[in-house]
């Protein structure tokens, strides 16, 4: 990017290092997954990998994933929205808000396997500090409780801007026209927040779908969800009848996540209209 590049036509050269890096470590891996999902063991194109997914084990992993995602994202969305409202209605510079937001950031994004250990310490079936929860290892409810531990904070982080966007004047307007609190939420608040709420719920769904660390630390012997199946097929690749099973599973996840996240971005754009 030296002074030699002064013409507008040559300026794009400055983006080459970035494009090269993301090309090799982001776009190429994604391409490899899609490519290999349709490659046979001997190198020909095939749909065999995809149709080979139609086995009892894989089907149960996908249903397991869906169950866990639906449960944890619905509970997380409702409770997280309540917490976001409680946080938003306080002092925007207050320490309570800071504590909750920093704590939410840690739990939602950077927890990893430690979250599972925390619950093991608290309510593990043999080692629980408060009580021994016999349902701790039940799927999906036992793990859903742990998932809420990062889903609720994520919802709080994502939904807070939408609630901050609700303006006092709208409430005053509703009141001056004789509206009750219920009517305000029913006719003003809820319709305004609905796109952001549904969008955030989709984001939580995608988040639960991709989560791997926590559930692997919770139980690594049984593949309950798709990421665990991918992990199994990746680690035990030698001796598998179908070397591209992992790629096909990963491709299935890409399809699911892309559908969900497109919904999220569309709704987010609509919700952003009121967040100025």
């Amino acid at each position, binding site marked *: *990017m030296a002074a030699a590049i002064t013409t507008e036509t040559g*300026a*794009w050269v*400055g*983006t080459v290092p*970035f494009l090269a*890096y*993301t090309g*090799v*470590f*982001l776009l*190429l*891996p*994604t391409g*490899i*997954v899609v490519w290999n999902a349709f490659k046979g063991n001997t190198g020909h194109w095939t749909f065999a990998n995809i149709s080979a997914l139609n086995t009892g084990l894989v089907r149960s992993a996908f249903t397991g994933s869906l169950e866990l995602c639906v449960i944890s994202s619905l509970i997380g969305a409702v*409770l997280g929205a309540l*917490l976001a*409202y*409680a946080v938003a*209605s*306080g*002092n*925007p510079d*207050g320490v*309570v808000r*800071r*504590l909750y*937001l*920093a*704590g939410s*950031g*840690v739990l939602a*994004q*950077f*927890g990893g*396997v*430690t979250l599972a*250990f*925390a*619950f*093991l*310490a*608290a309510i593990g079936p043999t*080692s629980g*500090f408060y009580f021994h929860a016999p349902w701790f290892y039940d799927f999906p409810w036992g793990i859903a409780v742990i998932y809420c*531990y990062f889903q*609720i904070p994520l919802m709080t982080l994502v939904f807070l801007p939408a609630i901050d966007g609700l303006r*006092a004047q709208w*409430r005053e307007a509703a009141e001056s026209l004789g509206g009750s609190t219920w009517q305000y939420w029913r006719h003003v608040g809820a319709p305004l927040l609905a796109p952001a709420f549904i969008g955030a719920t989709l984001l939580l769904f995608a988040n639960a779908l*991709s989560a*791997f*660390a926590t559930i692997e630390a919770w139980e690594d012997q049984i593949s309950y969800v798709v*990421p665990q199946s*991918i*992990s199994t097929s990746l680690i035990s690749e030698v001796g598998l009848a179908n070397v591209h099973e992992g*790629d096909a599973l*990963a491709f299935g*996840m890409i399809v699911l*996540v892309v559908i969900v996240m497109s919904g999220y971005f569309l709704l987010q754009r609509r919700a952003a209209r009121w967040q100025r």
Partner: protein
Amino acid sequence: MAAVNQPLGDLAADLTGPAATRRPSGLRASQRRRLNTFRYVAFTVFGLFFLLPLLAMVRFSLEGTTPGSWSVAAWTQIVSYPGPPPLLSSIEITLELAVITSAVMLLLVLPTMIWVQLRVQWFSRILEFICLLPLTIPAIVLVVGLAPIYNQIERYNVSALMLFWAYVILALPYAYRALAAGLAAVDARTLSEAARSLGARWPVVIFRVIVPNMVQAILNALLLTVALVLGEFTVAYLLSYVNLQTNLFEISRSSENAGVLFSASAATLAFAFILLMILSYAGRRLRRGRP
């Protein structure tokens, strides 16, 4: 001392005299009371839900050999746990990874973002799309495609530090959003035109004019990147590298109730929490500094 006293002052204000005075929210006194009741209940219930497991973890980390006793043995074990592999070495690796990842991420993303903002505006949508893409593609999927690439890397270098190549990608969305917020607050075009008209070359414009105006955003991006690297498990685990999280995972497999498991986990979470609190307060000081 003001900085130390400030948070407590805020705490009192936040709990006793919320919004009505600072932020007109169009509420009558009775509604305000109901809202406050709701807030206290919510903060208590959610606070307990989030804190109780963490407290249990801390309590276990402080337990001696007999149940109910107290001991700091598990905390001293963080540096002495023999492994294999030794816990301390995996902590070192993770911290080194955090430094390398932050440095590479900044060098790669920051100049590109400024350059695009100044000279290649049409590229900004593509840049944003690529940077946010890792939010959409799960790490577990990315790692399937990364495995063949890492097979090549391992021919030249088998060190776990090579994980930084993938970690930069994972940190990309967080770093991008932090930096984009900072860049939006700087009038980059005017600054660069002023600098150029005084004869500055482009590297000078980027590194000595624009970057010093974005120190806060850069700090935010660094803190988020460090927090991400500290908590990363999926990529390291599936590519069979040892970092802090995979090491903790291995310890949990071999002895489920090892005290060091809980002390090291608590320490990691506390460290990430402190990073995010610094981020939150550093941001406020900057806002106050401006009219």
